[in-house]
């Protein structure tokens, strides 16, 4: 199942897609699978499985803490395939990963094993198309989506070149800053989405900062997908135990799903 399948469905329903992010291995390996099932059960249209990494330069405190916990519990790269295999089938499952982990596993081997597990593709926050020769070849060979990022600071030329290298959708980093739930959504985001649309017919997902249904509805007014990460991670960081986190995640996802359909 590819990203395009999910976007065909949400477009037919006249709404934006809800994309939920959670690191594999957080809060535990088994509970990351359970949490993704909860996301899907309550209305997520695509899933981003995060790869815990020792040096997540694009992430704010919430996702850093989640990654640290997963690594301290012994998370290994190959376990992402277990997670993907366990949750694949209902919605497209992508992985968001810092590049060194893929390069170290072997770019083609990672693509092969990820595709074999039923994954849809990768989102690569620290890989720009100029550095992605091997990944472009591997994603072609194994028929995987490849999602690069555009940012408010991107020049026209870079936006054009970046969206041309994308398959599945384009990730618009809506604020100049790291991941984290914010009180207000970004003023720069609508402009960025508009600039990206001038160069591509691909759906544009908007990420960084959304924390509730109201904000999701705001972003859904101009984006094709609303990407939520830190607010999902916070369900587990801010509750006393995992079952309470699962309950809070179900409520949050319901609220977000209602927001993108408004």
């Amino acid at each position, binding site marked *: 199942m590819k990203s395009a399948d999910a976007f065909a469905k949400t477009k037919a329903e006249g709404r934006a897609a809800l994309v939920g992010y959670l690191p594999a291995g957080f809060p535990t390996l088994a509970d990351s699978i359970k949490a993704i099932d909860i996301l899907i059960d309550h209305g997520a249209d695509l899933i981003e499985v995060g790869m815990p990494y020792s*040096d997540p330069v694009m992430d704010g405190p919430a996702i850093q803490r989640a990654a640290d916990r997963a690594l301290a519990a012994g998370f290994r*790269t190959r376990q992402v395939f277990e997670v993907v295999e366990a949750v694949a089938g209902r919605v497209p499952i992508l992985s968001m990963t810092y590049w*060194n*982990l893929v390069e170290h596993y072997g770019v083609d081997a990672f693509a092969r094993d990820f595709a074999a597990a039923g994954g849809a593709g990768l989102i690569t926050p620290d890989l*720009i198309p100029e550095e992605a020769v091997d990944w472009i070849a591997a994603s072609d060979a194994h028929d995987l989506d490849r999602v690069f990022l555009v940012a408010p600071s991107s020049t026209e030329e870079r936006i054009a070149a970046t969206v041309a290298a994308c398959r599945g959708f384009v990730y618009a980093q809506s604020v100049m800053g790291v991941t984290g739930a914010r009180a207000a959504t970004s003023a720069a985001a609508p402009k960025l989405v508009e600039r990206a649309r001038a160069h591509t017919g691909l759906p544009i997902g908007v990420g960084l900062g959304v924390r509730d249904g109201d904000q999701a509805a705001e972003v859904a007014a101009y984006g094709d997908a609303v990407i939520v990460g830190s607010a999902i991670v916070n369900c587990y960081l801010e509750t006393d135990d995992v079952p309470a986190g699962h309950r809070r995640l179900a409520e949050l996802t319901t609220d977000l799903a209602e927001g993108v359909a408004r």
Partner: protein
Amino acid sequence: MTNPDLNGHWGAFGGRFVPEALIAALEELETVHNKAMEDPEFQAEFAKLSSEYGNLPSPLYKAERLSEEAGVEIWLKREDLNHTGAHKIRNVLGQALLTKRMGKTRVIAETGAGQHGVAAATAAAYFGFECTVFMGEEDTRRQSLNVARMRLLGAEVVPVTTGSRTLKDAMNEALRDWVATVDDTHYLIGSVGGPHPFPKVVRDLCRGIGDEARAQILDRVGRLPDLVAACVGGGSNAMGTFTAFLDDDVKLYGFEAGGDGADTDRTAAAINSGGLGVLHGARTYVLQDEDGQTKESHSISAGLDYPAVGPEHAHLHATGRVTYEAVTDAEAMDALAQLARTEGIICAIESAHAVAGALRAAKDLAPGSLVLINLSGRGDKDMGTVVDYFDFTKKPSDKGTE
């Protein structure tokens, strides 16, 4: 001198592995830097500032008594005599000038033991920039004197409490700040690492070390040295030293911090003990586990305690032009003591790695060979470590030699 390709690669190394949000700032820096390097006005301003404020060029000094013990003729490039006590002043003054040219008013920096932080805060004070320094929480406690220096110089010091709370995490935090502040802020990076064009920028600003030393030794001795040595953490003093000699028939040696030994887990020798990887924006040699998660580095020298190395060094290793060897904590501390005893110079523990390595490599040279060592910094900052290592807390009379 070798230059990277258009996307910042030296062979398989370097490049730009950073979020797209930072690319525009990197492109701006590249443009401004390239223009500055060809602009006589910039060069004149940099030279004047370096000389009047930085106390440059640093002297080249013939170490007679050390030479006698080593059996070769040893010359020391005295970067320890620079303002703020190390080669780092070259980098920060140069980048501060570039910051001014970009119209930015704030600089951020990462620091391990605080040496680069102090240098960055110094340049910021000189130019009237706002300055924020990111430093691992553990290091802010161990290096409270340097924290005080930075604060006295007007910088804000932010203790980093994420990840392993060390230099690499301070660098992560600086990159995170930069993504959000890039409009008015320059990331004044402390070494020849990071995404393109930083490795080239810092090398170009530090290459005065080797350019001066090459001219000085030709003037004093009439010929080029047989061997040139420098210590390598990220590698700015070593790139600054080697660049002038790359096309000469001169043996070049970079000495990494071996910690307990390059074959142990407690090491910082990225080239000798690490593997190919991507960290902090560049493809290079990285200390990492079997999945590519960064491993913590260990060295008695805080300035070399970093789990990767600048990409141009990785390239010079791969091509064989420079020989990179590891020097253990113990070897470095012995050399530090030997230099102090024979020459009356207390060097930084970083620089002591270069001295130790050069003395070891000199054993394979013909007697009387010329050896040039970059003495990258002075040792005042390391006296706490020295006291602990040599157990100087004992009263002198305890030794029973009085």
